[in-house]
């Protein structure tokens, strides 16, 4: 059936009157009860239109007819624009992958890039990872001309780490260019303590009790293995 423009216009308005809706319903051969409220009539009309549409019996200028529908669905889901390779700002950020691997990415503003590309410096650019107490420090040389992110096997879990990018000066002193915020490297082991803490809800009080491991329900963890030797296992 061809859908009357008026019906579309009525349905588009925020406040069609009950008379308009009754007339529309009549045109669509919908049987109404006297007691029906405006909301119920509108629901019935929408239901009918959906039915007609599903059965392919609806044509109207305002919504897509079959011709445009076919065209529409064949329309390409357009390829988005390529994203920027650099935001030209100094940035250094670490994300933990698991208890041994971390991912780090960095970006430089023009001034820093120019400095680090200096012939004297470019072969001495260093990336350092330091634990929160600056007790353990790992370092590696990085080539900033073809790298802006990297995965590192830190293998030191259950603590906070941060990263620093800089270069080694002639006197061997590390000159920091930028520093990341701390991130927490997940733990891979239980941390047995001498005391356990309990919170009394009624008293809103923390109570410390000595740990008695024989009273603990101990988890049974899965273990990986194979019969082909002790090379690195992939799960």
């Amino acid at each position, binding site marked *: 059936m061809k859908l009357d423009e008026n019906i579309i216009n009525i349905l588009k308005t925020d406040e069609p009157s009950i008379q308009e809706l009754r007339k529309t319903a009549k045109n669509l051969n919908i049987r109404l009860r006297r007691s029906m409220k405006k909301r119920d009539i509108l629901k019935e009309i929408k*239901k009918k239109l*959906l*039915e007609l549409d*599903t*059965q392919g019996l609806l044509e109207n200028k305002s919504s*897509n007819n079959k011709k445009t*529908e076919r065209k*529409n*669905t*064949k*329309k390409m*889901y357009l*390829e*988005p*624009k*390529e*994203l*920027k390779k650099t*935001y030209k*700002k100094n*940035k250094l*950020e670490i*994300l*933990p*992958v*698991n*208890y041994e691997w971390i*991912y780090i*990415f960095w*970006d430089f503003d023009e001034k820093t890039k120019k400095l680090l590309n200096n012939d004297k410096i470019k072969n001495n650019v260093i990336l350092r990872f330091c634990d929160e107490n600056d007790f353990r420090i790992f370092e590696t040389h990085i080539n900033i001309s073809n790298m*802006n*992110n990297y995965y590192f096997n830190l293998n030191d879990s*259950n603590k906070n780490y941060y990263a620093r990018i800089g270069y080694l000066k002639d006197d061997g002193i590390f000159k920091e260019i930028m520093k990341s*915020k701390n*991130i*927490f*490297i*997940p*733990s*891979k*082991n*239980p*941390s*047995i*303590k001498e005391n*356990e*803490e*309990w*919170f*009394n*809800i*009624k008293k809103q009080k*923390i109570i410390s009790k000595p740990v008695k491991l024989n*009273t*603990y*329900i*101990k*988890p049974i*963890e899965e273990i990986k293995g194979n019969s082909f030797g002790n090379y690195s296992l992939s*799960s």
Partner: protein
Amino acid sequence: MRKGKFLFILHSHLPYVRHPNYDFFMEENWLFEAITETYLPLLDVFNRLEKDNIPFNLTISFTPTLMEMLTTEDLQVKYEKHLRAMITLSELEIEKTKEEDPRKYKMAKFYNSYLERILFLFSDQYSHNILKGFKEFQDKGYIEVVTCNGTHGFLPFMMNHPAAIRAQLITAKNTYYKNFNKNPEGIWLAECGYTPDLDKYLNEFNFNYFFVDSHAFWYGSSPAKYSVYRPIITKNKVFAFSRDPESSEQVWSSDIGYPGDSRYREFYRDIGFDRSLEYIKPFIDPSGMRINTGIKYHKITDKKLPLELKELYDIDEAFIAVSEHAKDFISKKRSQIKRLISMMPDLEPIIVAPFDTELFGHWWFEGPYFIENFFRELQKNDEIESSTPSKIIESLEEVQMLTPGASTWGAKGFNDVWLNKSNDWVYKHLSEMSDIMVKTSKYDDKDPTLIRILNQMAKELLLAQASDWAFIMTTGTTVEYAVKRTKEHINRFFELFYMFDNKIDEKRLKEIEWLDKIFDDLDYKIFRNNC
């Protein structure tokens, strides 16, 4: 006599997929399938249990993206159109299968009445908004509905961007309030992603509890004394519940889980691929690409068998399997509770069993019937009863205090799924967008157009943060779509940012607002607090 408590937790989530500029968009079917096969069948299970006076408690999360889709009129209209088309297909199938195997004919009739029932629930009983149904059951005290991070953003990767965490949590809270008319008690953290100090933010927004994976209790600041069988409280006074690996494996495991039984319906054999193209064309992608219709006539038979050799499905045989499995599961839980009671003097063991909601019905067609049978069987025994996190918390007097370990419920238990060579390119952009959003959120003028631009920028950032895109890039299912969606949101964000600083293109702004119309009441100022 001490009873064990069983917490059935269902996590319902779909990424925000809405393409108002297309009459048909294949990925919108994710939502339509979930409504037809999971959400409405679950509500029907609740209806039947209530009618028969069967007590049941269950916790279900709805992510804000899913809540927004379920309450969006254009998607509701598209869904009804899709559902009516499926009913038409089931009618054709009744005619067609008369000439084929009687088992197919039986199933065709089953599908027809099943779909008619779904239409009745969707259209008449819940007036197109199925969240009303879940609200009703929550208000009656049967279920507890919890929320989730706004766009299912992966919070452990936002620890250096506190404002981004807050924005995810504020949208979690506001969207929930809009639909359930109260503040959420609990939150399901997307991907169960937790890292120490996240509880600080949960406390800030008054979340009373959250869920973690098992090893969060094993590798925390100190081990949980009762493993995963009692909740703990964090330093910031938020309760945490941890997943019971035993229950998960019994139901979820692809090797030994119930859904792999030979009598259950085979998910991958669908008439969308089996029927002639000419016949099925009106019911698949208009481009002619075959897709699942939800009408399936075969059973698993044997997991190793190729699809073409699968035998025909019989729903009555599957119902027998459901009944057996529900009884078996209860029996396993009883044994587990007995074992735990012997190890926990004076305390009730609490078994927390979380699952993706879509497992029940969508992936495992008989899943909702399993849940129904489970609760029917449960009321016959006096050793276990179902409960909810809030009820458990109310009964606590003393609780162990610890910091759960960094963890997720993804493969390998950490962040590998969301950060690897296939998806690491995303994070540089998300970080930059967060920084820009924090800066621009300080804008305090009254220009309504600039405010619209900033609100839309906030939405684009939230949508780009959805963990689904990184997940899909790893699993390799609809990678092209995930990559495009990510790039689109990033591009739109920067396009808007350019408008904010330079020339406003009103027409384009309106178009982006129409395309990514989520969180109507979102205020860009939620990004202001970055401490």
